[in-house]
């Protein structure tokens, strides 16, 4: 069986697992959407700040669920893999002809598929509430590619943690940390409009700001090369680093000869 076919089998299982756990479906879809609704209603007046890049806070804030959805991907990938380690299912897979890369690839393919489905959902939510995507249909496609990339990056990070610790609790322990990164970013306000100096500096140092700004540029600005290069560049770097770490941890975890 080819490595690609093995990836397909593992990915199919990953998607089936997610589809059969209502909590894994509901939270990534409902929670970011609810937060989008509440925050947009509450912070609408922020659009009156001089220099605010949009007259719709909802359009401005729509970038948030894309990133939060990717964080949920981290949790799903990590906890599923940790469970496989804890239950011995990983040993079962290890006793087949499956390549180690297919295990990681398959798991991540499932997470990426879910990430893209989430992104499509958020795009639809945006369209339904009247957000006009400034970059047009091509921009929406780029947005979906970016959603796949960040799901891969954060999914690989979750997989790394699971493989390194073998514990679902450890993976879940990371979630608040990632949430802190999300909140100390340009999530609510453009960086140049953040009045508090230390917050602006932290938001500028925080890679999550550039991921949000990449998504946001496609929604409210149009084609912004700088935002796209920074967003894709940082997401690619996170993906490469996480995949490297996850592959190394997998090699150590799978001691098989």
């Amino acid at each position, binding site marked *: 069986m080819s490595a690609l076919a093995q990836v397909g089998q593992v990915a199919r299982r990953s998607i089936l697992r997610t589809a059969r756990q209502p909590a894994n479906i509901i939270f990534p879809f409902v929670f970011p959407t609810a937060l989008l609704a509440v925050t947009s209603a509450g912070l609408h007046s922020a659009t009156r700040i001089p220099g605010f890049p949009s007259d719709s806070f909802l359009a401005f804030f729509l970038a948030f669920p894309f990133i939060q959805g990717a964080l949920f991907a981290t949790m799903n990938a990590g906890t599923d893999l940790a469970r496989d380690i804890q239950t011995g299912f990983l*040993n079962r897979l290890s006793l087949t002809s499956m390549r180690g890369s297919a295990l990681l690839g398959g798991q991540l393919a499932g997470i990426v598929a879910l990430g893209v489905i989430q992104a499509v959902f958020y795009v639809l939510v945006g369209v339904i509430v009247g957000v006009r995507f400034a970059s047009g249909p091509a921009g929406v496609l780029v947005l979906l590619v970016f959603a796949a990339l960040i799901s891969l990056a954060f999914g690989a990070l979750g997989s790394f943690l699971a493989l390194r610790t073998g514990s679902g609790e450890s993976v879940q322990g990371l979630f608040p940390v990632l949430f802190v990164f999300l909140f100390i970013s340009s999530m609510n306000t453009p960086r140049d409009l953040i009045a508090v100096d230390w917050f602006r500096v932290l938001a500028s140092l925080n890679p999550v700001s550039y991921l949000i700004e990449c998504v946001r540029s496609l929604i409210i600005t149009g084609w912004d090369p700088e935002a796209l290069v920074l967003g894709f560049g940082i997401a690619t770097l996170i993906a490469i680093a996480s995949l490297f770490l996850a592959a190394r941890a997998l090699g150590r975890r799978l001691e*098989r000869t």
Partner: protein
Amino acid sequence: MADEHGIEAEGLVRTFKGDIVAVDGIDLRVEPGEIYGFLGPNGAGKSTTVHMLTTLLPPTSGTARVAGYDIVKQGPQVRQAIGAALQEAALDNLLTGREHLRLQCALHGISRAERKVRSQELLERVGLTRAADRKVGGYSGGMKRRLDLALALAHRPTILFLDEPTTGLDPQSRSALWTEVARLAREDGVTVFLTTQYLEEADVLADRVGIIDHGHIVAEGTPDELKAQIGRPTLEAIPGDGATPESIARILEQFGEPTGGSVKGVAVRLEHGVEDLAGIVRALDAEGIKLQNLELHAPSLDDVFLAKTGRSLEGAAEEEEAEVT
């Protein structure tokens, strides 16, 4: 399905962090088509041995060949030749039995058309046809173990490793699994390496038994050979009204050596076998000692374990835990 190679290991050692020696120089040979029972208490090194022989864990030193392949240098070939059901049925509660089998067959490289047929065949064999499309989370322990066995057989292995396959099962499920394992060896010629902590399981199923304790094989042979090494039966006397274990021990020790195997009374291994029985009854009667019960036990594998290690197998696991804590 029979293979001309079985399992051979020489000086197999596995240590873990903190200089813990889990397996300490094991030599063993399992003939093709044989059921080999690997008997020992918890923590004796059974599962570590299985993990090494199934290529999941590299040995610290020593060599082993499984199905003719070196476990260190030819891991993929070993995995292709073996099936394994490891301790605790490692299943995904969210998948159905059929989905498990399809995934297992696919990852073993079985073609799509054959996967369907093979999955159905295995579901029928282990009696899970009706539950095939139910999620495994709703299966009983026995059903999970049967599915585990079916998964191990998906790619028609010539050697099967079963790591404590009946632990936690009810007697009916245990018996059903024994029947299937015996059938696999007798009819399909599959070599079975079975670890167990149950004396009865090793006695009923295994052609040969290796007894492991503290990482060493302390005895090996057919169950009858091992029992013959002990040879003499054990007599156990439970004190009745007014009698004390000490007073009984004083009499019984004239007829054999104490074994320490009795909880409620006194047990001795009889020096001359059953013929001592009449003399014992007379001696006890002469002393006016009343008994609640007097039992003659044929030698068991537990007696073998006791003779080789100085401990009873059934109490050994608790002792291990007490030592650790």
